[in-house]
């Protein structure tokens, strides 16, 4: 477990270092590209299988909402976003969790969850898409994968999970379970690093642009979520303070002139599928 902790610390430190580069976003983007350039098909399989276990934990905590039409609608919008996210090797899966809690989750490999409460807070399709895009960004930027160093094999001297399992020892299996617990802890307790959260917000907003949706939707949704009385119950526990997220999005919107764009909100069909619930 000590090895996993040290690996995580390296990842977090690298993320913090990026803010000192002046253009932090561009620096992170180069890191992203470099990481992808060394990713193998076995790494992706390891990521999906690990993510599948994380997804099972999410679904062990919250039940699926059994509404075929709504789930299909969320999947259509989510998949249209995911194809623009730069991870074409992944098949994304979407689900609605049957809980009033306002939140969303993602597991490595492309498992995306949005709660019924989060859907009800959205006022149009672009806002729902913004929440999904934020979670897709955690997957496309490999935030948990990088934090826990989930790779099929590793040449850097650190210990990949598959190598641990290949050792076939009880210690190795415990290490896998501990990594799984750590991923679940990120989702439900500690949250991602602030750097990762802010990056996911920025990537999500740009994903909306590339998908023809309203690029102001995430900013609008977050402002509404954080103004609610019950924010302390959910979003605040695993996300950075709202003021920082909103300020970061304001900078992006200003720098990229996103307010000048005419993205779709698709309010009518959103009302048909979601508000009719």
């Amino acid at each position, binding site marked *: 477990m000590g090895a996993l902790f040290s690996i995580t610390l390296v990842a977090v430190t690298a993320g913090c270092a990026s803010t000192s580069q002046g253009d932090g976003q561009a620096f992170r983007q180069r890191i992203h*590209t470099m990481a992808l350039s060394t990713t193998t098909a076995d790494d992706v399989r390891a990521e999906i299988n690990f993510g*599948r276990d994380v997804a099972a*934990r999410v679904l062990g905590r919250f039940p699926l909402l059994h509404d075929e039409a709504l789930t299909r609608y969320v999947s259509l919008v989510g998949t249209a976003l995911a*194809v623009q996210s730069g991870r074409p090797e992944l098949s994304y899966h979407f689900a609605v969790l049957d809980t009033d809690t306002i939140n969303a989750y993602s597991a490595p490999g492309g498992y995306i969850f949005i709660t019924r409460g989060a859907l009800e807070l959205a006022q149009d399709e672009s806002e729902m898409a913004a929440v999904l895009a934020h979670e897709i960004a955690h997957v496309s930027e490999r935030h948990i994968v990088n934090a826990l160093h989930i790779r099929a*094999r590793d040449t850097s001297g650190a210990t990949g999970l598959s190598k641990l*399992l290949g050792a076939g020892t009880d210690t190795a299996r415990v290490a896998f379970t501990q990594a799984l617990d750590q991923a679940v802890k990120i989702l439900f307790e500690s949250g991602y690093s602030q750097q990762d959260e802010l990056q996911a917000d920025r990537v999500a907003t740009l*994903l909306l642009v590339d998908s023809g949706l309203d690029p102001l939707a995430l900013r609008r949704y977050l402002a509404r979520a954080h103004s609610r009385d019950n924010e302390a119950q959910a979003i605040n526990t695993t996300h950075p303070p709202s003021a920082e997220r909103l300020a970061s999005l304001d900078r992006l919107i200003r720098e990229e002139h996103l307010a000048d764009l005419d993205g779709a909100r698709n309010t009518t069909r959103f009302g048909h599928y979601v508000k009719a619930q």
Partner: protein
Amino acid sequence: MQGRLILGLVIALFSANAALAETGYIRAREARVMKAPSAAADQVVALHKGDKIEIIKHQGRWLKVTAGQQEGWVSSLLVGSRPPMHKITVLDGKDGNSLEDSARRRASASTSAAAARGLRSDERARQSDEGVADFGAVREMESTGVSEDEAVKFMGQAN
């Protein structure tokens, strides 16, 4: 003699530029190449997944690129340094055991019986203090996917 010198310099400059150019590949389904580094700029051309580009310059999140005879700016979020991989799936009827399987494939013949036995997903869950796992719900989630083509078509029908 002077003409040869100029020609040599031109070739040297051309070679230097070619050496500096960086090759990239479109990783998104579609990438709009813009006239300026801005989402609000006019579109030059649309590229598609797997298309090869030459990267001339980095500016923030934007890359100045050439693709064929076209030149413009594309978001670096849509570009990778290697061609995109084919779709990878582990949904071959197994219950999340492929991670161990792939590890075992690489293991030597002396792999212990314990490694060959592996650990089922539900067993992993029982070993944890962090709650239950529902793989049946995961399979249900995986079975309700939509195709990329129908998702893109749906998104194009804005209303």
